[in-house]
């Protein structure tokens, strides 16, 4: 027996029951802290999906699917030593034999973590069943709500708490008339006081959600106008097609009851401050646990418990769980709601400051101690911009200013915001991941010089995200306190932003990287960050052929060889198929080329055809055949226009109102080859049915019976964003003028590799500002932007046609300079009638580790 298997024999088994947000966080923390050296971890989940973001559940109806809601990286559960049992409920815990029982059999454990969460409480009401007894907690619940909503007009949520209002939002986004029925005399009775509840009610009703307070449902019977009738006390009733109960949660403690663990007075697995239950081998965390008799129905305390358990299991010193801050900041139905600390002023002697604005239904309350020195709590409705500052005053016991009322008064010119420098090092910035200001400072001292790096390294702002703005402030403040002006340098060679470099290139008429580096940079080589960025700026300004010798070394391999490198070092080729329109002859020509060179062929999302598997030395031959057949390069490799997708429009479609293909061709041929900070895509739909999906594009054009509606700054992909309506009923010339200006303004002012969606979100002044610049010409730039775009369009040429005419340029397309052949290491296998790269296991080769001398 070798030493490795001896070690694995000594591994203990750790079972985690429940893969919700808290259970997932526990596993993540365990793996991060090295638990796999001591344990093999088995995670059981009753639900068929791995952990997902329950906090943002209502976004499931506004476009985020289960995949997008999933938490963390799937790789966590593929780590050797971690086994995830999805869709497998644990039926029983046999504490005497230390085994868990599921329908797959028994599994012995050394340590067990209960993270079973909670279930929605449905009061026993006569007649509540099926679609009149829906709940709102899991993705499965949401699917049932969606099914019930199919033939429904109206939906009611019972419960006006936080989750109830989220559920009302979900019903609204399903297109239902939404009502909220609350037993208490106000909304969110736990977090809000009377005026706060009133302000929230006013705002929500203004959004079209009806609120019925002080109503207890006695029974549910068949309705006359709608499917059901909810009968309240007296003669009062409300009819509806479906009912969602969100009247509170109950800890899911069935396994604890079955196995005889001690419970809290109102249920839940009783735990001590180490999160240990009455059985020393069993921990409980999250909403199934009762600490000091109480259940914590928020994610941050659950994460705190998960961390406490993970640290103990890894043999580290753990911070005991001593209760949690139940402060919350939310956007409910688009309305800001915040509740901090003692929101009700229950502390003896507490006094309050209140600000009420009935015209906009805003409300703010600050609760202070009897001596007026400390903030104890706060309530916010309508504007959460006060939240971060108030929370810091409350949770860090910072001395209040002489006039505390200033903290909740409308922010005038002299805003009394608490500077982040006033925060002590112990101040918690991110409560989800328990990241203090001190931890952020040491991460910065340890070399984190970018916000994204800081987030990755401390995990701050990666939970609920509520602290993102505060984190950014702390980050920028700390950097400048260290004498670093917030470093927006492109890289170590240029202490300029992309925008600044763009301006320099244009003003000084610089046409080469070397000239720019000599005048404004450091060193004489550059790097893989600044070279492509400057290459793109030069192209955006002057549009010289990218194959010019001075420009070639600046480009990524894709731009250098005008094709897209794939994982095995071969390239894919995407000829331009403008607007997705192609003649049969050209289609045949494409097929013939693909067949001749054995290229894997796939249709892209942009209505083009991608040909995969060409080696470097084959590219010129393939392209000379494509150019002969009338094709141009499609710039699939460039930070430039990709495609203009279109539907067939009025030419063929009975619904079409304009010639969308014609317009797509005009736009694609106009902007092809234009280099930008990142790739950009357009689409043109021939009517409001939007078959070209224009609202997910950087620029979307949708036909109306009077002309074109223009949408901007949409995106698909990893972070989808609906494009925003920018201008309506434009004629052809105005449409093109606006797009010229928009694109050129983006090219001038965006960061390196910043898509239009992110750029638009970073623009101060937002869409209104953009409209002022593009439509009203508020900066007096319009003529210049149009002229610059015209220069780029006039200088367009097909890069492949250009390269094919120049033997010097073609010399680069050699796999080896001392051999005419290809790379024998590139191997293919056949699958579904085409070639694809062989996987390592299919090569029957053993990788040789070469010894280095």
């Amino acid at each position, binding site marked *: 027996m070798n030493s490795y298997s001896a070690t694995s024999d000594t591994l203990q088994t750790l079972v985690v029951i429940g893969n919700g947000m808290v259970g997932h966080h526990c596993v993540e923390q365990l793996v991060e802290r090295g638990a796999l050296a001591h344990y093999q971890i088995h995670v059981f989940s009753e639900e068929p999906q791995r952990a997902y973001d329950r906090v943002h559940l209502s976004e499931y109806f506004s476009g985020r699917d289960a995949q997008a809601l999933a938490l963390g990286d799937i790789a966590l559960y593929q780590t050797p030593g971690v086994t995830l049992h999805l869709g497998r409920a644990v039926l029983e815990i046999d504490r005497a034999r230390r085994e868990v029982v599921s329908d797959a059999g028994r599994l012995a454990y050394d340590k067990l973590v209960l993270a079973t969460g909670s279930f929605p409480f449905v009061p026993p009401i006569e007649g509540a069943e099926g679609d009149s007894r829906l709940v709102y907690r899991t993705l499965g619940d949401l699917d049932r709500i969606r099914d019930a909503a199919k033939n429904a007009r109206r939906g009611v949520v019972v419960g006006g708490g936080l989750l109830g209002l989220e559920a009302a939002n979900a019903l609204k986004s399903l297109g239902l008339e939404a009502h909220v029925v609350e037993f208490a005399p106000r909304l969110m009775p736990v977090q809000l006081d009377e005026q706060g509840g009133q302000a929230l009610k006013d705002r929500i009703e203004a959004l079209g959600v009806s609120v019925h307070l002080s109503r207890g449902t006695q029974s549910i019977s068949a309705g006359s106008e709608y499917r059901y009738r909810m009968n309240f006390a007296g003669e009062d009733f409300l009819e509806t097609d479906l009912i969602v109960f969100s009247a509170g949660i109950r800890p899911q403690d069935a396994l604890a009851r079955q196995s005889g663990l001690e419970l809290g007075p109102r249920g839940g697995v009783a735990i001590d401050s180490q999160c240990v239950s009455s059985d020393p081998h069993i921990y409980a965390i999250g909403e199934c646990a009762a600490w000091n008799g109480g259940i914590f129905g928020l994610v941050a305390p659950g994460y705190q418990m998960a961390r406490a358990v993970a640290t103990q299991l890894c043999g580290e010193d753990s911070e005991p769980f001593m209760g949690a801050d139940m402060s919350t900041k939310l956007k409910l139905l688009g309305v800001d709601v915040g509740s901090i600390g003692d929101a009700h002023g229950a502390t003896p002697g507490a006094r309050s400051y209140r600000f009420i604005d009935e015209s906009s239904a805003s409300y703010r309350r600050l609760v202070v101690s009897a001596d007026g020195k400390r903030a104890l709590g706060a309530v916010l409705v309508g504007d959460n911009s006060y939240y971060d500052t108030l929370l810091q005053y409350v949770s860090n016991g910072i001395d209040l200013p002489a006039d505390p009322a200033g903290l909740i008064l409308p922010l005038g010119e002299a805003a009394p915001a608490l500077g982040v420098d006033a925060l002590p090092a112990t101040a918690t910035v991110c409560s989800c991941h328990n990241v203090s200001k001190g931890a952020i400072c040491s991460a910065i001292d340890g070399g984190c010089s970018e916000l994204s790096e800081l987030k990755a390294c401390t995990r701050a702002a990666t939970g609920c995200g509520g602290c993102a703005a505060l984190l950014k402030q702390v980050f920028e403040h700390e950097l400048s306190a260290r004498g670093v002006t917030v470093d927006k340098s492109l890289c170590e*060679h240029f202490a300029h932003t992309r925008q600044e470099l763009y301006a320099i290139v244009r003003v000084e008429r610089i046409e080469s990287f070397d000239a720019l580096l000599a005048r404004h940079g450091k060193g*004489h*080589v*550059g790097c893989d960050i600044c070279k492509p960025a400057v290459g793109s700026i030069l192209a955006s300004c002057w549009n010289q052929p990218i194959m010019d010798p001075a420009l070639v070394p600046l480009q990524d*391999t*894709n731009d250098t060889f005008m094709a897209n490198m794939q994982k095995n070092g071969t390239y894919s080729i995407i000829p331009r198929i403008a607007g997705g329109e192609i003649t049969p002859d050209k289609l045949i020509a494409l097929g013939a080329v693909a067949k001749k060179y054995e290229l894997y062929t796939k249709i892209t999302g942009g209505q083009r055809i991608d040909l995969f598997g060409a080696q470097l030395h084959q590219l010129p031959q393939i392209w000379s055949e494509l150019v002969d057949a009338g094709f141009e390069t499609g710039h699939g490799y460039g930070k430039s226009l990709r495609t203009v997708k279109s539907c067939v429009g009025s030419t063929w479609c009975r619904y079409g109102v304009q010639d969308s293909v014609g317009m797509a061709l005009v736009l694609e041929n106009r902007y092809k080859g234009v280099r930008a900070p990142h790739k950009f895509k357009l689409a043109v739909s021939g009517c409001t049915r939007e078959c070209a999906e224009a609202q997910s594009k950087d620029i979307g054009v949708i036909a109306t019976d009077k002309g074109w509606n223009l949408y901007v700054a949409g995106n698909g992909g990893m972070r989808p964003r609906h494009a925003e309506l920018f201008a309506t009923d434009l004629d052809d010339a105005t449409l093109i003028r606006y797009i010229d200006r928009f694109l050129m303004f983006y090219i001038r002012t965006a960061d390196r590799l910043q898509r239009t969606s992110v750029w638009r979100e970073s623009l101060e002044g937002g869409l209104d500002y953009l409209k002022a610049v593009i439509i009203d010409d508020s900066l007096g730039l319009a003529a210049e932007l149009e002229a610059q775009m015209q220069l780029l369009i006039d200088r367009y040429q097909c890069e492949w046609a250009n390269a094919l005419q120049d033997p010097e340029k073609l010399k680069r397309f050699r*796999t080896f300079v001392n051999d005419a052949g290809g790379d024998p290491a590139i191997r293919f296998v056949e699958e579904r009638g085409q070639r694809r790269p062989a996987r390592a296991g299919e090569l029957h080769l053993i990788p040789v580790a070469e010894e280095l001398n």
Partner: protein
Amino acid sequence: MNTLTLERTRNAVEWKTLCQRTDLVADSGVVAWLDGAQVALFHLPLSGGEQVFAIDNRDPKSGANVIGRGIVGTLKGELVIASPLYKQHFRLADGVCIEYPEQRLRVWPVRLNGDRVEVGLG
């Protein structure tokens, strides 16, 4: 057809001609065979003196032979090549990967001998 020239030097290093100077691309890379190994050659005609580097063409992270198609740059003053697939950087001087120091590429001594690009063996 390539010419292979053998030559003895004082240090008993064997120099082998891989290609001609005109095969190199300024500030960028090309790839040549060397006895069954793929060698990426980078040519830096810098103001401080012309330099050529030879480094293994195989990217250990992807297993693909692509290093010769990366971008040359400097990181903290050291010349590096960025792999075109996953963008990790290798020092041209000794082949050590900046991000994953356990990944190390083989490097060879190179010299320009007239118009010939020669790599040292041994």
